[in-house]
């Protein structure tokens, strides 16, 4: 069994985000980064599957700047066998189509039986990588898995549906599974495994050699929501006078009432 897990490193979501100089994405200055939460579920599920079959092999892949090596090392410390880094200092400028094309460019040569990834990234949240990848590779695809098992070449996944209903899906391998909160509890990298991970291979591949696809959609602008004006409290006078004042304000400053 050959398993691939695709991860992204994202900023700590409790950070204060500021647009970059070009206004095209957030500025990375002063941000702390960590592995995308949904990708942690993907790594855990992949490692669990890997542990069941000693003959299997588990690779972890990430496209992004040098800092993403930290997330790859964490995945190695959680139990992945080897890592693939596709360096791209400006990966944020690539759209999901391009990122999925790069991963597919790598996965095509790898003969993977199953690919796990998060159901979406916590920062961009497009949720497109998994399905796009499955399409490009001609794999089955199950999204938002909250349960997973494998028997022979058939994967069974539990999915959470709108309104809390659950569904069970069976898919033939090869397959892409995108992982949702509730699937598992990711393990902590232990100290001995952090040490062992240091000896594992991190291959560096060239993005341009994996795919030369152009973007289908580009991010035009990144900005903080416009601050709303502060509220206004009308005080003093009787009810009729206050109501009169309110009508004046509504006519003057809003489109609720027209003069």
């Amino acid at each position: 069994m050959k398993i691939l897990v695709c991860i992204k490193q994202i900023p700590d979501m409790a950070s204060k985000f500021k647009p970059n100089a070009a206004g095209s994405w957030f500025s990375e200055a002063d941000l702390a980064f960590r592995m995308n939460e949904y990708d942690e579920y993907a790594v855990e599920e992949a490692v669990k599957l890997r542990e069941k079959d000693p003959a299997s092999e588990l690779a972890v892949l990430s496209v992004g700047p040098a800092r993403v090596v930290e997330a790859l090392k964490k995945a190695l410390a959680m139990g992945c066998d080897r890592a693939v880094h596709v360096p791209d200092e400006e990966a944020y400028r690539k759209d999901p189509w391009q990122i999925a094309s790069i991963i597919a460019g790598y996965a095509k040569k790898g003969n993977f039986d199953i690919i796990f990834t998060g159901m979406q990234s916590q920062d961009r949240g497009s949720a497109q990588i998994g399905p796009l990848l499955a399409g490009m590779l001609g794999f089955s695809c199950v999204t938002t898995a909250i349960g997973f098992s494998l028997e022979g070449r058939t994967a069974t996944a539990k999915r959470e549906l709108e309104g809390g209903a659950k569904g069970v899906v069976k898919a033939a391998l090869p397959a892409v599974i995108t992982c949702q909160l509730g699937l598992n509890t990711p393990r902590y990298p232990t100290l001995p495994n952090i040490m062992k991970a240091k000896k594992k291979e991190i291959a560096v591949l060239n993005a341009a050699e994996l795919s030369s696809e152009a973007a289908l959609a580009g991010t035009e602008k990144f900005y903080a929501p416009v601050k709303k004006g502060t509220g206004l409290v009308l005080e003093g006078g009787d009810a009729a006078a206050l109501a009169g004042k309110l009508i004046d304000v509504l006519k003057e400053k809003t489109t609720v009432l027209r003069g």
Partner: protein
Amino acid sequence: MNFELTQDQKILRDSVRDFVEKEIKPIAAKIDEEHRIPQELTAKMAEMGFFGSYIPEKYGGAGLDAMSYALLVEEVSKACASNGVYISAHTSLCCDPLLNFGTEEQKLKWLPDLTSGKKIGCILLTESDAGSDVASIATSYKRDGDHFVINGTKMFITNGGCRGTGILFATKDKALGHKGLSAFIVDLSSPGVTVMKEENKMGIRGTSTAAFAFDNLKVPAENLLGEEGKGFKIAMETLNGGRIGIAAQALGIAGGAFGRALEYSKQRKQFGKPLCAFQSVQFKLAEMYARIEQAKLLVYKAAWMKDAHVNYSTESAMCKMCASEAATYVTKEAVQIHGGYGYIADYEVERMFRDAKITEIYEGTNEMQRIVISKALVS
């Protein structure tokens, strides 16, 4: 010069932080109240490799560096100082002298049980009349065939009540002073070892601090650690490294208290404004943060020097002194920022305030640290 942690150190810090957040923080108050660290937590920490951080892999450790060890103790102590010293005393005061002075046979025999957390380690140095004055140790040993026979008492033994593995210091003849001291590896569950008392303490109440009596304790001759008569040197070098552990614990206590004070100052409103909007509170926060950062630089530097195998005795004394004083200062101010709430046990800063004080006292009082530092300057 580079002040950045390595990627591996960051992964370790974040992993420990996540573990502490979920497994230790929720029960830190209970550990303090019940005066014990639950066995289940010890097992989980053992699985994480907390008991063998920088001990080489061939002895069952993780084989990481001293810097990683400092980060581990710091992160654990942010939530629970008892667990911080539990790990620190075990690693710095028991595993470390075994690693530095033990023979290959001794290391292979004793370290795997310690690094796996099966046995918790401690050092048996202090006696009622021999605290800072190590050369006054009165616990005696005598050679008897293939054994040593040990008699005497020890007190204030951190982790003593675990009755795991101990590094025990005893004298051949008290009149010889420090030249009479030797170190022995002792299984504290052996016959002849009695725990006389568990101390009831101001802080770090989750850890055991025990008094021991040794009544004709028979220790096999092969358990002599290092050369006979070199006990003083072993003790001093061990305490040297131990100071980084205690400094990291103090740094963690200070960081934990600061985090809670900062958060509280943003939430608590008085006179229509959050506390952090008042300059009197802002200045406190600025001073607290600056003192933590000062201490952190010294602690990390001392750990870095230990990893670089350069003499770090002055730095370890300075980092222990500064970090412990930062801890007592920061926890005191954290209580003050919490006002009346800071004085009650429902708010964690009350415990942290009590926990901080010991870091100025144990593993060499801060007065002893000043002696170490000034000796290096003027001698």
